[in-house]
């Protein structure tokens, strides 16, 4: 019975990793698509500041393309950490969404620190030096993360239930998901209130330590009931997130890198040309009369003829 939280945590983490991997692979396996970039494109170097592109260059195809990875990082990091687009365009929601997301990041960071602390082999009570800093980090990140997460989730839930433009568009699951976050964070915070913040994170660190050491030994984690309950709930949540639209943290990467910022030109003789040729060889079955796809004609056939009206050109 004592090891239930431990196994839940292992299973939750595993389920999360498997789902995230599968979902990432799904996006990676998507066929090539036509260009649909949207400016500003962050890797355009100096031009990115006003939204310009290499297409502003005369005879751009004869010149080397500037690709600033630093430009991407400069946009991506603040976007991920501070939700810049939301802050700029929807401040009311940002006040709720930012603490929610930042809380999640802090909880994740705190958990990583717990793993690191355990791997160092330090004892919670006697940790000194770097281990002492980690211990402090665990407490601060963990506590701040839970508080911010709870405030954000509750704020989002309240707004979603009251603002007509959000309420009208919400499915029951959207409310349920936020309510689950509120519940899970509340349970964890009540654990902190009941046990004291140090004791709570000490036992949690012990349990996380068992997980990271799992490849090297067996599990013996025993934690107080309230910590166990928090761990079970968090683990269920972890497994659940990628199954919902909250997997947008994966989709967003592809939205930016594969669509918005994907301005790679198809140069003559490039690898891309081969992929495009294959795509153009696929069958078409759209059935409007000006296409008359029959599942046999391919894209090239359809694009170079007009059923009945214009003969083969």
């Amino acid at each position, binding site marked *: 019975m004592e090891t239930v939280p431990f196994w839940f945590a292992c299973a939750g983490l595993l389920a999360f990793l498997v789902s995230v991997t599968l979902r990432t692979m799904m996006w990676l396996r998507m066929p090539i698509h036509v260009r649909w970039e949207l400016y500003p494109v962050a890797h355009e170097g100096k031009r990115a500041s006003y939204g310009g592109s290499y297409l502003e260059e*005369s005879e751009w195809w004869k010149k080397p393309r500037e690709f600033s990875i630093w430009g991407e990082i400069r946009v991506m990091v603040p976007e991920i950490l501070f939700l810049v687009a939301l802050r700029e365009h929807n401040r009311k929601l940002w006040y709720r969404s930012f603490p929610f997301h930042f809380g999640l990041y802090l909880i994740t960071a705190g958990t990583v620190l717990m793993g690191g602390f355990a791997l160092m082999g330090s004892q919670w009570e006697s940790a000194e030096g770097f281990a002492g800093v980690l211990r402090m980090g665990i407490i601060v990140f963990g506590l701040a993360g839970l508080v911010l997460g709870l405030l954000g989730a509750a704020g989002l839930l309240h707004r979603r239930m009251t603002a007509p433009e959000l309420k009208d568009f919400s499915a029951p699951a959207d409310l349920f998901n936020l309510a689950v976050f509120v519940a899970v964070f509340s349970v964890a915070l009540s654990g902190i209130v009941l046990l004291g913040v140090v004791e709570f994170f000490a036992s949690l660190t012990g349990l996380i330590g068992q997980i990271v050491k799992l490849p090297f030994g067996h599990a013996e984690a025993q934690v107080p009931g309230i910590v166990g309950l928090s761990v079970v709930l968090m683990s269920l949540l972890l497994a659940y997130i990628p199954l919902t639209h909250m997997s947008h943290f994966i989709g967003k990467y592809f939205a930016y890198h594969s669509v918005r910022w994907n301005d790679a030109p198809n140069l003559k003789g490039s690898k891309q040309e081969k992929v495009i040729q294959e795509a153009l060889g696929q069958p078409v079955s759209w059935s409007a009369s000006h296409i008359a796809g029959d599942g046999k004609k391919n894209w090239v056939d359809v694009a170079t003829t007009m059923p009945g009206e214009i003969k083969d050109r």
Partner: protein
Amino acid sequence: MFADFSRGDDCLFEINQKDQQPLPPPFDDIDEEPLFRRLTEEAKKKYVLLDDTIAVNIPKPETQEEEAQLVNSFLSGLRRLVSREDNWTFLEPLMISLEHCAKCQTCSEGCHIYEESGRHPYYRPSYRSEILRRIYFKYLKNSSTWVHGDIELNWKTVARLIELSYRCNLCRRCAQSCPIGVDNALLAREIRKVASQEMGIVPKELHDSGSMLQLKVGSSTGMNAIVARDNVEFIDEDTTDRTGIAVETPWDKEGADILLIHNAGEIMAWPENPGGFALLFSAAGLSWTMSSDLAAYDGINYGVWYDDFQFARTALLHLEAARKLKVKKIVIGECGHAHKALSVIADKVVTGDLNIPRESGINVLRDIVREGRVKFDKSRNDFPVTLHDPCNLVRLMGIVSPQREIIEAIVPKERFREMEPHGVENYCCGGGSGFAIMSGHNFAHWRHHVSGRRKLRQVLEAFQGEVMDMEHPKYVCAPCSNCKGQLRDIIAYYDAWERAGIYYGGLVELMVNAMVDAQPGYIDWEWH
């Protein structure tokens, strides 16, 4: 509001002018604005109704079979839309946008149609997307409505959704503000694709008298090659008369460096634009030609707004003409959607020797200025000028600075003022995605009162502080044929030339007007 969408026979809502924000002076009295013309009773009886206007003309089904046909063909189109073979062109962006909306409504604040309608909830960018999303999850994926929300799918839902996909300019301003990267414009276009590619439902201006006419005759204007050449010859003569410089457009010149493709609407409606190009290209000593091959003298490609196959067919004709003439590159005249179609979207559709480089005409004009190949005298453009950024050219292609560099060289600094916002954050003219050429029923009124209102507001704001009358002419520079069409219509509708001295035109006109070697007065300030 999702349940209502599938119910009732009437319009779901009407535009109430009282809900709209007044325009800046001298149009700030909303009671003095022209009245929005309502749909006729006859139209209301005959066609599927969504709001106060009709773009697509879907007849109300008369039998249950017809009703079922609408639903079934929509669903079969939706199946093809999510298939790797039938929709490889857009599958990934489509699925990202279908699966990841957080329903936060941030996109609404970016949309001029939503805002200028008086913030009508049915015009939220995410509303039509959410209907499509709910249909997809409920009827294709059999997912729980508890998770994805409910929608009833009947012929009204289908027909209204198609109609609603034509209440979006596809300007993608909303996509810029989405914190996740969801693209409601893309979803609107995908709905249009299902309607066209599977159901054969498209506004006739875009298909029958648009892309089809271009593929059959050579141009959506109806001009065949002989007529186009005659007209251009006439334009050359006129340009020669007006500027005092002999101009002759070369046709079908094999081995020229440049194949220049205009939107043929310019030849018909704004001849001073192709005339200006011919003059500047010749004066700069460029090696160039136009082509009289099928569709190659008309750069329009309406497929970008509704149909991937019509798009590909047209783009291939353009490229084929360039291959035949063995030119080094295609240069695209002042037409935003032609730019995006041929430069960006066609990029992933052509291979081998059809993969001929394409470049913006604005770059070429910028190089003419930069290299000093033609001399300009700014003082000839001594009037207030503002610049409209066509979405296709700017937000969707990143061509932002060349037009500004040109303006800096040909307009006195103190006479130029940017619209706010501008560049990649610009607002659509209101004619985007085909609207500029659509005027059935009272659709033009909808364009003027709703989709084009933000641009008129921006133009008026840009010129505040100037004397607003015809004696003090002001120039809205719009380097795009469709945008010019929309600006022409809205300026005429609000009488903004007579009441505020607001005139419009392209970029080359402004250049030729400042050309030292040309006789002054290329811009004639005559309302045509």
